[in-house]
């Protein structure tokens, strides 16, 4: 058992390191966009930082403040009903995982939907929410459900909600700044008629290309972070439940599942789910919010 546990902890450590790397990349991207903005517009890098930083911070704080209500209403989730035995057992399982992680007990919500899925949200562990679909309650066995809940609990424990909200905020801010720049160049023609020499023009062109591409790179970086955090939640969850096979079996069921009806809720909240309900994620793709299911199952089974 000690040998197995070391493997899980190795996974956890590796995944955490990956996150730091990708976040660093994101920070550099942000700075790059801001400086480009400053250079193109004002020939002065520091002024742009003065403008861009407050925009970004404001944006991030705003989205973070309303994250819980936004997510819950977008997903059409309702509080769980302890009088229904399935949901009562779900509440017990969430309490169990809270005990195992030492975190306060999250509120338990349910989404009436046929597909097997779950998500976690919340600004702090103290007011966290875990939501599970009725499809999951019906189709998953006890140890499989436990694996799913352990995964969601890990998201809360690892502050993933904070990380993903901030990251989405930064991506949004980068896109916003880039758009402002683009439109103002269209209308205002910054740099034209200022009598500068060619050397600076080349830099301007580079800066423009950078600003156009930056939102794309930011999005890719965000998706890379999202995938890393999913692997981390898988391994942390396996540690909590001491049973990686539970989640592995649940993921297999999710893979084979053919739910009736369209997934509920808006696409915006897709990254928070345990598996993207809007796209079958079987291929390894830069554009996926979640890692491919088969790879997740393989890693779980190797623990």
């Amino acid at each position, binding site marked *: 058992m000690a040998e197995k546990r070391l493997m899980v902890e190795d996974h956890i450590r590796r995944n955490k390191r990956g996150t730091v790397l990708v976040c660093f990349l994101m920070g550099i991207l942000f700075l790059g966009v801001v400086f480009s903005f400053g250079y193109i517009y004002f020939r002065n890098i520091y002024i742009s930082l003065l403008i861009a930083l407050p925009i970004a911070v404001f944006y991030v704080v705003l989205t973070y403040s309303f994250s819980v209500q936004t997510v819950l209403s977008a997903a059409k989730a309702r509080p769980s009903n302890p009088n229904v*035995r399935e949901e*009562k*057992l779900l509440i*017990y399982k969430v*309490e*169990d*995982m809270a*005990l*195992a*992680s*030492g975190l306060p007990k999250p509120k338990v919500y349910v989404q009436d939907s046929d597909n097997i899925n779950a998500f976690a949200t919340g600004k702090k562990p103290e007011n966290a929410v875990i939501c599970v679909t009725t499809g999951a309650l019906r189709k998953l*066995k*006890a*140890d499989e459900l436990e694996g799913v809940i352990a995964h969601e609990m890990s998201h809360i424990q690892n502050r993933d909600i904070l990380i993903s909200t901030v990251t989405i905020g930064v991506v949004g801010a980068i896109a916003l700044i880039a758009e402002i720049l683009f439109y103002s160049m269209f209308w205002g023609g910054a740099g034209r008629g200022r009598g500068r020499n060619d050397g600076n023009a080349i830099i301007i062109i580079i800066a423009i290309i950078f600003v156009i591409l930056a939102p794309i790179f930011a999005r890719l970086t965000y998706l890379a972070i999202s995938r890393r955090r999913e692997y981390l939640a898988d391994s942390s969850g396996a540690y909590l439940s*001491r049973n990686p096979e539970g989640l592995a079996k649940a993921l297999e069921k999710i893979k084979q599942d053919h739910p009736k009806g369209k997934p509920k809720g808006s696409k915006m909240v897709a990254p928070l789910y345990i598996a993207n309900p809007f796209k079958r994620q079987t291929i390894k793709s830069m554009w996926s919010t979640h890692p491919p299911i088969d790879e997740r199952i393989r890693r779980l089974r190797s623990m």
Partner: protein
Amino acid sequence: MDLLLILGLVILVIIVLLVIIFFSYYNRIIRLENRIDNSWAQIDVQLRRRAELIPNLMETVKGYMKHEKEVLENVTKARSAVMNAKTPQENIEADNMLTGALKSLFAVAENYPDLKANQNFLNLQDELTNTENKIAYSRQHFNDTVLRFNNTIETFPGVIFARWMNKSEREMLQIPAESREVPKVQF
């Protein structure tokens, strides 16, 4: 003159860093130790919950299982043993006895369809299974907090602080061999 200034600044930065490290390790060790005490208290909470559920269970089943005196007595005896346990070792042994006695009771209850249809009994069964799981998880968490504490005070530089603060390693809960085959109870 400049060199002296730079040297002074470097020394200042080093001192500040050392102070920060000092505080962080001191606080971390205290915090991790408090978590151990907290998680130990949690185990107790769950054990009490289970002990409190049992009289209710006995009331519900005794009408139906009149002829299963031995099974019922085992549960009652085990429960008293848990309430009277003085040392942690006694506690764990009595606790195992109770878990075993409850398992037998529920196994025997399978033969009584009337009992199985009783809503009260079903609720209690859910509750007790739930408590067994919670006891297992709170023990697991206790061991996790002990592991984290031990890791911190055994590795460098925590080991220096530990010696100075007079902290020693804590012991993890040992699960007796017999109950190792009993995995967490599934509903």
